[in-house]
């Protein structure tokens, strides 16, 4: 199944479609990625999905690279490449075009309406991501505590995320979670 043309086509089409509705960034699309990769296509288990998520966090760079990992898991190197192209290609074209014309409509009422209207939608998407990721990542009392402590400290301070990942990773590696 790995690397089959069907898988590659599914990766390209599904990620391209998803990207056009991913308002609020790559993390906002996590529930849809999970739905696709685990529930619909069965490319991986819940546990493998959270592993991909953790690996993407551990890798420097934009969060969107989780898409390369999912594609890689589903269809090898070609799968990773195709999934990333699907996720970034169409939206880059949109961004390129919009970046050139957007400022011309600064005063237009529909422009502010689009901006205002999209804020709560993207927030709802991100909240859904937080919920979905927490549901599959928090499988023990220890991991629940890690999530809660991170919420409080990250909300109250500007501590570098690497501290959270480092401490939680060590606690996990020691088998304490």
């Amino acid at each position, binding site marked *: 199944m790995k690397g089959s043309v069907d898988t590659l086509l599914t990766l390209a089409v599904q990620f391209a479609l998803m*990207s*056009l509705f991913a*308002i*609020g960034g*790559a*993390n906002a699309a996590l*529930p*849809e990625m999970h739905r696709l990769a685990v529930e619909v296509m069965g490319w991986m288990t819940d546990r493998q999905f959270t592993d991909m998520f*953790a*690996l*993407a*966090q*551990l*890798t*420097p*760079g934009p969060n969107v690279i989780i898409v390369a*990992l999912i594609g*890689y*898991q589903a269809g090898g*190197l070609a799968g*990773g490449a195709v999934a*990333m192209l699907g996720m*970034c290609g169409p*939206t*880059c074209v949109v*961004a*390129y075009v*919009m*970046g050139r014309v957007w400022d011309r409509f600064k005063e237009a*009422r*529909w422009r*502010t*309406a*689009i*901006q*205002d*209207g*999209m804020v*709560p*939608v993207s*927030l*709802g998407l991100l*909240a*859904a991501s*937080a*919920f*979905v*990721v*927490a549901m599959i*990542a928090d499988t023990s009392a220890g991991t629940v505590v*890690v*999530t809660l402590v*991170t919420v409080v400290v*990250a*909300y109250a301070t500007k501590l570098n*995320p690497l501290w959270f*990942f480092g401490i*939680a990773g060590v606690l*996990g*590696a020691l088998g304490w979670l």
Partner: protein
Amino acid sequence: MSESTEIAAPPPGPTSAWALFRTFARISLYGFGGVLAWTYRILVEEKRWLSDVQFNELLALAQFLPGPNIVNFSVVFGSRLYGKAGAVAALGGLLGVPLLAVILMGLVYARFGELAALRGALAGISAAAAGMIIAVVAKLSKPLFVRPLGPGPLVAIVCFVAIGVLRWPLVWVLVVLAPLSVALAYWRRA
């Protein structure tokens, strides 16, 4: 602290698309768990290629456009400086090294993914990363819920329930919800 520099010449931008590529590659390497903070630090504070107002305007556009925010940001920023070459340079810099790194991660995972210590470490990191997203949501929702503007909070809650709890497909939820939310915002401005 002087404010008289407003009329002075704009700060020098990158000297070439290659400089753009190198700078975005550097930004990507610093950014763990997202690169936005580093984009601000390097483009605004260090290089002074953008003022903070310009940065915020560009970010607002990048966030409202579909797709990964920072990818959109790099494409729009690069294209405004050097057209297509600029867009490709900024995007290539942003994604090039992280893609190689993540493939390496994938290889390590395929080889050692069942080791108990690695399994535990990844479980801990996922739990922390979930907490990071929740904290971001809490920060972002404050203005929306403290000073509710029209139907905003309701739209956010419906979106959350449909996607997060009911697990409905993203495309169908947004095809209905996005135009509705924009229309409501349009009328409210009337």
